[in-house]
């Protein structure tokens, strides 16, 4: 991109004097902004899977489940890592279990992701306060899989294909409404 400024013709040497603050953008402004857009993307790139995760989240929006929030803490020492970081770390360190916590009002769901046979993922989950829960696993282009929690609020999916996924949690007694996790990368 050529950022060569046009010479300040008649207005003298000062670029700011030649610039009408209420005026329209000139060609050089356009070049500058175009270059700036490239820099913004280079310095803080949009995560590569964010669009696809958003698109899948939109398809799940019709489930009328309230979105839970993932809990992110600064220090990984707490054993709680961001969903996105966990997903990225998964590529390089597949042997390590990852734990993600989601909250919504009074309900907290923790899931632990660990490797399973054939490059798949095992999900162990725990919900508090403990109650009978139906947990649905939604994945793009796949049938919904449901697991029931035990009385302590524990549930598991033994062997799940990697990729984008979201959990929808409903109380078996029908109370409280459904909640869903953000779309994460397994």
């Amino acid at each position, binding site marked *: 991109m*050529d*950022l*060569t*400024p046009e010479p300040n013709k008649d207005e003298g040497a*000062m*670029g*700011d004097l030649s*610039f*009408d*603050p*209420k*005026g329209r*953008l000139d060609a*050089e*402004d*356009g070049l*500058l*902004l*175009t*270059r*700036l*857009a*490239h*820099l*913004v*993307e*280079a*310095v*803080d790139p*949009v*995560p590569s899977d*964010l*669009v696809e*995760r*958003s*698109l899948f*989240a*939109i398809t*799940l*929006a*019709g489930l009328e489940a309230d*979105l839970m*929030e*993932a*809990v*992110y*803490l*600064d220090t990984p020492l*707490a054993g709680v890592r*961001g*969903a*996105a*970081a966990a997903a990225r770390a998964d590529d390089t360190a597949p042997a390590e279990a990852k734990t993600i916590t989601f909250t919504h009002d009074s309900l907290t769901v923790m899931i632990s992701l660990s490797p399973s046979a054939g490059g798949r993922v095992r999900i162990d989950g725990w919900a508090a306060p403990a109650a009978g829960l139906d947990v649905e696993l939604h994945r793009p282009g796949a049938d919904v899989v449901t697991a029931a929690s035990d009385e302590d609020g524990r549930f598991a999916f033994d062997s799940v294909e990697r990729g984008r996924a979201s959990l929808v949690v409903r109380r078996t007694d029908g109370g409280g409404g459904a909640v869903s996790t*953000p*779309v994460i990368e397994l």
Partner: protein
Amino acid sequence: MTGSREALPDVDGPGLTLGDRAAIALTEYREGNHQALGGLVREATPLLWHTVRAQGVEPDAAEDVVQSTWVALVRHAESIAEPKAVLKWLLVTAKRAAWEAVRKHRDDEKRRTELPDDSPEHPMALPSKDPLPDAEVLRDERDRLLWMSLQKLPGRCQELLRLVSLADRPDYRYISAAIGMPMGSIGSTRGRCLAKLRTILDEQGDFSWT
């Protein structure tokens, strides 16, 4: 929602901006075309990402904020009063969710560390510092100069210029409104920010731009 269609820009007309395309996508979605938002999500996600990041939200949480902004659009698709202003609606929604994420994060950190809160200022006024560009990222000397010059601008100018650069220029009014620039002074504010940037660049003296 009948009638809103006529207020939309002509699809075949020249110079459709991101804001125009967003309005068309929402209208088509309301009319039952559930694929209509796909293109908008692809096109506007970078703008939402950088809007959220500019509020000081960490990358992991920022991903969830962007995702939840799109979910909110679908949930509110029927109730957004002005389809023409949907781009602004998206930006404002993302920005508010970002503030909320920053507030919660600080509360969590405070609880965890049990340190006294010695920064009583409003979190909104304290976005985290911009990520410093790695020398590897900006190899071009001109790019480094432009980025360093941008850092010398007031924070709101930096945010405005970064976001405007990611949209179509006529959309600056939505972006300016979304980040809280007074409507009456948008044109001049935008002008001042760009003018300041160009002045700083000019002050680099004999730096060669070619």
